[in-house]
């Protein structure tokens, strides 16, 4: 394939530096890919043609001067629409923020700009990142480039879709309960949730503050590491930001799996997974063992309760985080006779059903008389999850399990069944509760040709071990399938 839109970030970086490619040319390539696929995929909410062209021009000028801004210099990157961009509409997939143009940039946006990245646009998402299919966007669903009849996963489905199809070489998503890893699995790309606190949340429109973490989408583990290096690091504007040095994730790329202690997370690696998913997972685990890793089954009983705890803690935090959308200062306003009526009408009109459901659940879970039984109990489970993981890491370096129990499901299939939809997150939620890092790597396809994700998780700040295992999985699986829409024939 000669289309620059299909290059990895690493390869594009080499060509940009040796003069075989310009940032402007690379931008043209991904824009062409977008123009061929957007009508079917709807990965983007806003395409910032002007801003991207200017950024590409600056990137080329800097390269011409001999300046090298790092792994994303000149690389087209897409941004989930819950990260605020100065001067570019930001809606978080919600009608309640329709037309809102932020007066400031998120810290990750500043870091991308400093790193010479070319931000191509804002990607579609489940409203306020609540969902696992990107069907909950107020602006219509995003579809999966492997099969437009299917969902790309969520909530960062737009970012995942854009990278899978080649309308960006990398993207940022946010992961509160699996919103990076699950769509990465369903679209056949790499998605990484770093340790909580390594990437600043300043300018990320909050869903659940104690769980939200920004991370990269890319087509290779190495490319994900490159994005991670640009966006990670202490930010004085985020009080929960980690103050110590960023772990050397890149160091894990070169090391092989020999001697790596791998724990198979028993509760999440058996029943409940599709047979094809399980088969691909087990094949990969065997390959790791064959390559010299030590494989041990590990039991983490609290993981069985993690999903329930998650669906109390996340709604509780969101019920407060989303209180600010009231029509007083920004966003659309529906009038009323009193301020209270105006706020109520604005919120009823502005929020979709899933967001409304979670606000109600969260409000209830925090109410006097129910707090201890719901929010308080969920926090105790969270503590148990943290302790279970800590115990496990005494014996193993990383834990593994399938990222998602199923491959991409059909658009509409789970839309009316919230509980079935919530089960999509069963394997990804535990590390959001523990704050630990996780990554999904594509390892095969199912009988329908849909990609299957393999999840590696590691202790907090264990990004080097995480990447070491993920890179080994990537090499062993040698996944090279491409989605139908990523070729000009498929896009026709």
């Amino acid at each position, binding site marked *: 394939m000669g289309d620059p839109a299909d290059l990895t970030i690493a390869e594009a970086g080499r060509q940009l530096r040796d003069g075989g490619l310009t940032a402007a040319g690379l931008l043209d390539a991904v824009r062409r890919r977008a123009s061929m696929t957007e009508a079917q995929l709807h990965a983007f909410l806003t395409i910032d043609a002007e801003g991207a062209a200017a950024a590409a021009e600056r990137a080329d000028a800097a390269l011409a001067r001999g300046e090298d801004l790092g792994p994303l210099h000149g690389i087209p990157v897409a941004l989930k629409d*819950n*990260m*605020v961009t100065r001067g570019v509409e*930001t809606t*978080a997939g919600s009608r309640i*923020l329709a037309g*809102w143009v*932020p*007066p*400031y940039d*998120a810290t990750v946006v500043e870091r991308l700009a400093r790193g010479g990245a070319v931000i191509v646009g804002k990607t579609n998402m489940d409203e306020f990142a609540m969902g696992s299919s990107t069907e909950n966007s107020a602006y219509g669903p995003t579809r999966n480039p492997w099969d437009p009849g299917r969902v790309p996963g969520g909530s960062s489905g737009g970012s995942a879709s854009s990278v899978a199809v080649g309308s960006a070489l990398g993207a940022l998503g946010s992961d509160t309960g699996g919103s990076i890893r699950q769509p990465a699995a369903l679209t056949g790309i790499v998605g990484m949730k770093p340790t909580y606190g390594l990437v600043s*949340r*300043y*300018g*990320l*429109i*909050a869903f*659940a*503050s*104690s769980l939200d973490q920004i991370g990269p989408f890319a087509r290779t583990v190495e490319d994900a590491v490159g994005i991670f290096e640009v966006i990670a690091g202490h930010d*004085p*504007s*985020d*009080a*929960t930001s980690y103050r110590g040095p960023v772990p050397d994730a890149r160091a894990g790329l070169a090391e092989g799996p020999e001697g790596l202690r791998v724990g198979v997370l028993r509760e999440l690696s058996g029943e409940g997974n599709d047979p094809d998913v399980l088969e691909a997972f087990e094949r990969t685990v065997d390959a790791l063992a064959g390559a010299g890793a030590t494989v041990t089954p590990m039991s983490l009983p609290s993981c069985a309760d993690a999903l329930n705890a998650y669906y109390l803690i996340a709604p*509780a*935090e969101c*019920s*407060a985080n989303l*209180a*600010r*959308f*009231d029509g*007083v*200062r*920004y966003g659309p306003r529906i009038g009323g006779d*009193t*301020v*209270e009526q105006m*706020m109520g009408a604005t919120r009823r009109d502005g929020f979709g059903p899933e967001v409304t459901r979670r606000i109600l659940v969260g*409000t209830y879970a*925090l*109410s*006097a008389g129910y*707090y201890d039984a719901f*929010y308080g109990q969920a926090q105790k489970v969270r503590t148990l999850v943290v302790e279970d993981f800590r115990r496990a890491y005494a014996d193993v370096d990383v834990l593994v399990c399938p990222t998602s129990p199923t491959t991409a499901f059909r658009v509409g299939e789970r839309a009316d069944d919230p509980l079935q939809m919530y089960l999509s997150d069963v394997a990804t939620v535990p590390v959001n509760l523990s704050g630990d890092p996780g990554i999904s790597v594509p390892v095969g396809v199912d009988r329908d040709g849909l990609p299957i994700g393999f999840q590696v998780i590691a202790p907090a700040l264990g990004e080097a071990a995480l990447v070491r295992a993920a890179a080994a999985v990537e090499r062993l699986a040698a996944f090279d399938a491409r989605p139908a829409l990523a070729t000009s024939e498929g896009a026709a």
Partner: protein
Amino acid sequence: MSAWEAVIGVETHVELGTASKMFCGCPADTTAEPNTNVCPVCLGLPGALPVPNERAIEMTVAVGLALGCRIAADSEFSRKNYFYADLPKNYQISQFDLPLCLEGSLDVEVGEQTVAVGITRVHLEEDTGKSTHLGETGRIHEADAALIDFNRCGVPLMEVVTEPDMRTPEQARAYADELRAIVLALGVSDARLEEGSLRFDANVSVRPAGAEGLGVKVEVKNMNSLRSLQRALAHEIERQTALAEAGEPIAQETRHWDEAAGVTKPGRSKEQSSDYRYFPEPDLVPLHVGDEQRDRIAASLPELPAARRARYRGMGLDAGTARLVAEGDGLDEVFEEAAAAGADPQAAATWLTGEVVAHLRRTDARLGATPLDGAALAALLAMIDGGEVSATAAKAVLAGVLDGEGSPREVAEARDLMQIGDAGALEAAVDEALAAHPDEAGRLRDGDMKLIGFFVGRVMQATGGKADPRMVSDLIRGKATG
């Protein structure tokens, strides 16, 4: 009438005098042009995050220590959830079950009596914006439009909550006064009630005198001075006592003090049982105040008002003067300097709380803005003692010093107020006076000593008040008997 007693607890909000707001870098200046000291954080824009103001935390710990509180090594911020247009996030970052300071006590002097007021807690939170309702009446429900100024939003607010340990409006006022003095002594707030940087709410109930349980509690708000705190409580206690005596129920409610009408009125009844759904603020990490930090703050505490008053009393001041000097704006500093320069403490204090304060009031000036310092005051007192200026002339000299005319001696000389202490010059003036009033002089020589006063007056008049009246009197006595 003494069959009922009141039980009073006071909640005080103190706007801290930090340079920046509680959770962002905006200037904590509420007087600027509306909505100029704002940013994504204090406007609650999507994506913005709070970062706590270390200085505000230290100030709160300092107040906690001054109130004898235990400083929690581990505390946390919580979200207090309620919808209000001037609260941009629709939750307030406050502290709930884990405040910074707890379990303190403050001794309050009321007349001869000392009351120990328990301090339940001292915690830190953020202030809200300020709404202005436009319309003819200025009432919310009749307003045509509402304007919101977010300059105040996010200004650090410290809340001090007492136990229900006060029994009279006087005690509550004395508590409020003492707390204000402490806040001023620590320099953590300008503590101006009329500008809202110090706000008092009181919880008050009545019960049969000597009873153990508590009656139905009413929260009284909107008292903008110490005097209105006392008046509002007196009124509210009278109201509740009348209801209790008539056997009528007292409603648990919030009432607002109407200063002009001199009564409390029920608040809007929107405040049903409010459930604030507090939970730990996930955007902030738990607060930790280590022993070392706490001890450092404790070591840097200035002398507290009670200790200062006790020391001044030890220097010979009476209780009332000691309080006036200790709490007057800048009086303490000048007083201490003057005493250190050798002035008699009681004399220095009398001049400061009398003539100096009166002059400042007349000229609407602050002591710190005048050139009067302790050395100048001591010099003036020494001139009075040494007979160089009369007490009357000294008042004029002091006014000159305060108005910037120079040192006491320079002013006295420039204004020609130095006392005539030269016996020769005075004797001439006495002779002149005797000569001018021959009849009286004759009667004086005949032994009518009452006339000494008459001639002293003549001489003082003739010398423009500069003569030393004692010397004049002695001279006249000498002439009469000589």
